[in-house]
């Protein structure tokens, strides 16, 4: 059974048909990049995988759990699925350490000392062990995003969803965040990224999914897709972003 499996998913915003029957299977340990023009439904697709968006037809199964519009089930699901956002969404009134420890204390019910140890480990992993007591507002964008990654990892998810996590960053800060992702890949984490970083998609990603007009238009191994795009739409998209 695939870790993530989408079966003919349809999603409407009112009359707007955003996802038009998406089929997609992602195995544990894969690094999958979802690319496409803005409005192609790629972020929506990602958000359907953890219940932030509801879909109207089809089915989504993640880690053997059906993703449905049910608060309790979604809470259980959130232990398997982590998410990192474009705008970081760190909690501004908590220190970096408190941000990372919040869910381990409230959701996993770990003891404060256990939570603290875990938070320190994770912050060290993302290279921010000296920022434990800093407030997010005092960090650079790249640092904030690394804290956000550490915060998601604290729940030890099986898959990490990354929604354009480098888009809000100054160009010189993108690298430090991508480095963390590479490290996670090396550890075998399943990553699903909606991204504009074509170099990262090609060099680090295993597989690329090209979304167009609410459908999976073309998909394949990263080097294949970039070296040898099959459809006209993908060709013109790649030409435009290069």
């Amino acid at each position, binding site marked *: 059974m695939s870790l993530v499996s989408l079966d003919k998913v349809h999603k409407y915003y009112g009359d707007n048909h955003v996802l038009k029957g998406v089929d997609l299977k992602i195995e544990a340990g894969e690094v999958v990049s979802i690319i496409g023009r803005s409005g192609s439904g790629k972020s929506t697709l990602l958000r359907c995988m*953890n*219940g*932030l968006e509801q879909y109207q037809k089809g089915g989504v199964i993640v880690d053997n759990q059906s993703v449905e519009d049910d*608060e309790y089930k*979604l*809470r*259980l699901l*959130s*232990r398997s*699925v*982590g*998410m990192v*956002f474009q*705008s970081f*969404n*760190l*909690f*501004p*009134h*908590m*220190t970096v350490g408190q941000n990372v420890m*919040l*869910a381990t204390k*409230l*959701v996993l019910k770990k003891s404060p000392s256990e939570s603290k140890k875990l938070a320190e480990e994770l912050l060290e992993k993302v290279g921010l062990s000296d920022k434990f007591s800093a*407030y*997010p*507002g*005092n960090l650079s964008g790249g640092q904030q995003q690394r804290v956000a990654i550490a*915060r*998601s990892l604290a*729940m030890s998810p099986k898959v990490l969803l990354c929604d354009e996590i480098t888009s809000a960053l100054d160009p010189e800060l993108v690298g430090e965040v991508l480095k963390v992702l590479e490290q996670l890949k090396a550890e075998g984490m399943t990553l699903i990224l909606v991204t504009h970083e074509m170099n990262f998609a090609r060099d680090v990603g295993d597989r690329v999914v090209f979304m167009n007009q609410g459908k999976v238009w073309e998909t394949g191994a990263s080097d294949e897709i970039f070296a040898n795009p099959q459809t006209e739409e993908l060709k013109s998209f790649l030409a435009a972003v290069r």
Partner: protein
Amino acid sequence: MSYQLDFPSLVPFLPQFAAGLWTTIELTVISTLGGLLLGTVCAQGRISKDTWLRTICSCYVEVIRNTPFIVQLFFIFFGLPALGFKLSAWEAGVIAMVINLGAYSTEIIRAGIDAAPKGQWEAGQTLGLTRRQVFWHIILPPAYQRVYPAIASQCIIVMLGSSVVSQISVEELTFSANFIQSRTFLSFESYIVAALVYLLLAILMRQAFALVKRCTFKNPSL
């Protein structure tokens, strides 16, 4: 025609002023705490998914915000006993003040909650927190920080409004001034003293709120 202001004659009545001041402070502190608590709970009610709860909370807010405090006070003190709720003047005063601040702070706090980016709710949700946990741990603290100046002003307004409870004979500062002027016939002087004390209290409260702010909100402003 010419009139000499006579403040020295008020000196023997200082204990009365002090007692009144103490009651004013007492009323203010209790109703500030109670009102903010009530406001926080009702603000949560106003964003609830339950239509009934939302409606009840907005009705409460609108009724209180669109009627004078003195009428609310009279209704509670004179009107409720007719239904069998017997209240002392002090109790009626506190209840009226709590209910009054509760309504205003509901609106203020709700504005702070509305200003929370949607991503904060989503981040909490993806971390597996319940809606209630997201509200209390993630949404509410920055909401307070955002609207803190408005809350501070409203609490000062409630302190000033406490002068009205003299009208049901709660023996606070204005009541003391009334009492003293009736004894001395130095009405202007008595009221000037009381007014200055109120002014001083308002200034002190503003300082106190600023101090609390510095000690509480250590993160860079939102």
